[in-house]
């Protein structure tokens, strides 16, 4: 009955109970650090265990599977299971949840409530990655969305009410599309099971696939910032408090890519073949347009948000190329972008907390004032533009090599266009860094600012270590991911 994966949901639940009972800020922090550490330890254990099981010759598609019947009449079960992709995603989530706690260490006011919603958000994310049942996945997906409204609305900055409402409504619109897609899959497959693995064995009628694939892909694509439905992302990220931006850009946007791959493309391969060219055009536009938009922004968070649009576009782009290498690259890119963007948002939050502005025109010479943060920002920037040795290089390399493997001329042209984004990324990263980190300190107020505190250093250093680790030993993860990608791609190529 008991499945080790249930801990991913139970620990956040216990954390929420603990938060509810805690009386002062010390207890709140204690609960959060304990819970987040446990989750991190659990994810690392799961990674080792998974690799160990695979080495010992375990060939099942999903491991740690279990299923408890929930809504019998509609065949809804609490089905759990992980493959290489979900193990990697769980680890990513845990790292970001853990560092997010430190990034919001000094957050005021209503710290307790903040962490309650924050934990609920992470609960939704974990639940989504461990489920293999369509209904349960969708439920956790929505659980992860709604806390965003209050997190941005209450603790955000700038035009927070507008951004929070825009983000929530656009993502809920997406989830409406997902819901009808899920119903389409369920009834298309003969209404006998909600379990993804079982539905994958059934051939859904091609007409149903052609109708419901675009709805599902678009629904998840909205969360993955697919052009032209990416507009929630810059506003939402710019207004959100630091840790929420980290979690949202780092993990929640990955739910989109994961859902597109695991649900839409896996269950409706013929639908995917029918529609892939349309979506390829949209994702290519996302990749290039996001990068160009980042060039003209002056707000640090907007720069990074548009950069996210571009990089998340690359995830969907690589998935639609439907080769083994490109899909592995897509998942690597999810990991890499998740870590890098969390690092960026953490740093931006810390800089904003000191300078009270995010406009790069009003800042200069921060390298002299806060060398630690500034150096970390440069490292993050270099990782983002794909410097070898960091995760970005590995991921983008795999994505573009994999995409070019597809012999179709149209896809090769798309690949060439998308590759241009690398250059544009270099432009906006180097320009931004040069503008606000180097040069003379023009504003004398800035000379009084202090460098990073211990909690901020903890968050940043862990993230940099992860980015570096993924860049230096990528094969651990690419082997891991390849096992998860294989069944889906063989379904698609069939």
């Amino acid at each position, binding site marked *: 009955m008991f499945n080790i994966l249930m801990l991913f949901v139970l620990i956040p639940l216990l954390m929420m109970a603990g938060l509810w009972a805690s009386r002062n800020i010390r207890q709140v922090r204690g609960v959060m650090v304990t819970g987040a550490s446990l989750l991190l330890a659990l994810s690392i254990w799961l990674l080792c265990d998974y690799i160990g099981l695979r080495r010992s010759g375990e060939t099942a598609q999903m491991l740690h599977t279990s299923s408890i019947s*929930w*809504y*019998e*009449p*509609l065949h*809804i079960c609490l089905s759990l299971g992980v493959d290489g992709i979900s193990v990697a995603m769980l680890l990513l989530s845990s790292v970001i949840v853990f560092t997010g706690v430190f990034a919001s260490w000094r957050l005021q006011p209503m710290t307790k409530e903040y962490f309650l919603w924050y934990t609920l958000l992470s609960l939704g994310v974990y639940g989504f990655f461990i489920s293999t049942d369509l*209904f349960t996945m969708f*439920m*956790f997906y*929505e*659980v992860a969305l*709604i806390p965003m*409204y*209050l997190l941005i*609305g*209450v603790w955000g900055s700038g035009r*927070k*009410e507008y951004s929070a*409402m825009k983000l*929530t*409504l656009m993502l*809920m*619109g997406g989830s*409406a*599309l997902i*819901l*009808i897609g899920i*119903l*389409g899959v*369920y*009834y298309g497959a003969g*209404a006998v099971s909600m379990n993804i693995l079982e539905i994958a064995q059934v051939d859904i009628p091609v007409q149903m696939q052609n*109708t419901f694939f675009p709805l599902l892909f678009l629904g998840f694509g909205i969360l993955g910032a697919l052009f032209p439905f990416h507009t929630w992302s810059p506003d939402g990220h710019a207004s959100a408090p630091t840790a929420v931006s980290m979690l949202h850009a780092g993990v929640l946007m990955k739910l989109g890519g994961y859902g597109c791959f695991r649900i839409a493309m896996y269950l409706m391969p013929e639908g995917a073949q029918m529609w892939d060219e349309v979506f390829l055009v949209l994702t290519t536009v996302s990749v290039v347009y996001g990068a160009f938009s980042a060039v003209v922004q002056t707000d640090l968070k907007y720069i990074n948000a548009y950069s996210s649009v571009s990089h998340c576009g690359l995830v969907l782009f690589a998935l639609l190329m439907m080769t083994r290498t490109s899909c592995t690259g897509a998942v690597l890119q999810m990991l890499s972008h998740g870590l890098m963007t969390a690092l960026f948002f953490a740093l931006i939050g810390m800089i904003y907390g000191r300078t009270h502005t995010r406009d790069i025109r009003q800042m200069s010479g921060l390298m002299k004032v806060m060398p630690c943060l500034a150096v970390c920002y440069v490292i993050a920037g270099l990782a983002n533009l794909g410097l070898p040795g960091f995760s970005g290089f590995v991921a983008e390399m795999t994505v573009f090599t994999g995409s070019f493997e597809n012999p179709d001329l149209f896809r090769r042209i798309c690949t060439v266009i998308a590759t241009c984004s690398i250059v544009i990324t270099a432009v906006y990263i180097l320009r931004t860094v040069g503008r606000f980190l180097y040069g003379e300190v023009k504003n004398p107020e800035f000379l009084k600012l202090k460098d990073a505190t211990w909690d901020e250093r903890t968050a940043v250093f862990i993230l940099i270590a992860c980015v570096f680790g993924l860049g230096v030993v990528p094969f651990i993860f690419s082997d891991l991911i390849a096992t998860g990608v294989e069944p889906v791609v063989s379904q698609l190529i069939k």
Partner: protein
Amino acid sequence: MTQFFQMRQEIGLTAVFLLMFVADLFLSEKHRNLLHPTACILLALQTVLTARPEDVTLFAGMYHSTELASALKTILSFGTLLVFLQSTQWLNRPDARHKTGEFYTLALSTLIGMYFMVSAGHFLLFFLGLELATVPMACLVAFDKYKGNSAEAGAKFILYALFSSGIFLYGVSLIYGAVGSLYFEDMQLHLHGCELQILALVFVFTGLAFKLSLVPFHLWTADTYQGAPTAVSGMLSAISKGAAAFALMTILFKVFGRMAAQWELMLEIVIVITITVGNLFAMRQKNMKRFMAFSSISQAGYIMLAMLGDYGQGSASLVYYIAVYVFANLAVFGVINSIEQQTHGKVLRDDYKGLYATNPKLTMVMTLALFSLAGIPPFAGFFSKFMVFASAFSQGHYVVVFLALINTVISLYYYLLVVKAMFIDTSEEPVAPFRSSPYMRISLVLCLCGVLFLGLASGVYTLFTTLA
């Protein structure tokens, strides 16, 4: 005589009604306060003791209570109990105090009417139930007749109700002309969709659509909800609506079952219009009671979605939706009522600004209930919405489900406006911190339990599917 005793729920409720009537007559002025606990305890006893679902057919089919209908009656009783718990503070006001007994007897008699509506097998019994559910309700709406717009609301309600009853009766007379019988059982053989019968269908449907406040028959709703005492608005929105929806479904499937081809398209159009118009108007409301009126119009549309499914899955989803809706909606009305009583009449959304800072618990109840109404997991509303969508989808009504789903986004917008007012906005003069009456607190806790557990505990829905 033995036949009468098989109607356990109706007999039990009538006994409660009579006891309350007698208690009201004989209790002296000093002991008036005892009426509240008496009413609540008696109704609770009736709800619990008669909660066993069973299939009963009496008087040659005139009375036919299916297992699902008796489950629904239990839900309606429980909802009325929640309303009773929420009305004590209002009834203790000096101008309403002397009418306490009247409130309970009137509310109980509407409930008896709904019982008969739900379990009628004959149009005459159905009509009797309908009228018994409506006329005392009009008195309840006009209960605060010297205050605010209560009298106006009552007048509007009774005029519309009588008008719609007239239309309904006209439809019934056409059916009688076509079939020569008023028993539901006889209808299915004879009604097959000729012009006269289609006309009858339209009139019967219209008559009930008024009660359910479906668009375009919804015009009375907002004014009535706004003018009526808040507890009564709650009852009108959750309990009357539940009974009417179930009755409509029974009639559509049992009487007009063979004319499904005729009513399906009509139903589709009415559903989409109802949900959309309800949502669009709700967005613009500043008064919380009017706001909830339009919200309940759009919710009625969602309830109707269940009727597009097949009878088994559809009726189970419908009853489940009603159960969840009763809890969530009464939680919202409970909070509105409690703030209204405390602040002597503040019911505007702007009055709720900064409520979280002063009354966090009340705010949480309201927020969770609104999330449930919007269909956000893990609250019960998510599950009940999913069930009605699945029910309509299973019969291939893709477009209607799609439009209804898009509408959930609109509804989320206006529910979030209230959440925003309470959590994010600040106010110069927020509602001062207060404790609601113990009765109100019990009812809100019960509602909250329903909102939290009716969905996560799958047993409820599974039970309804086995009963259907």
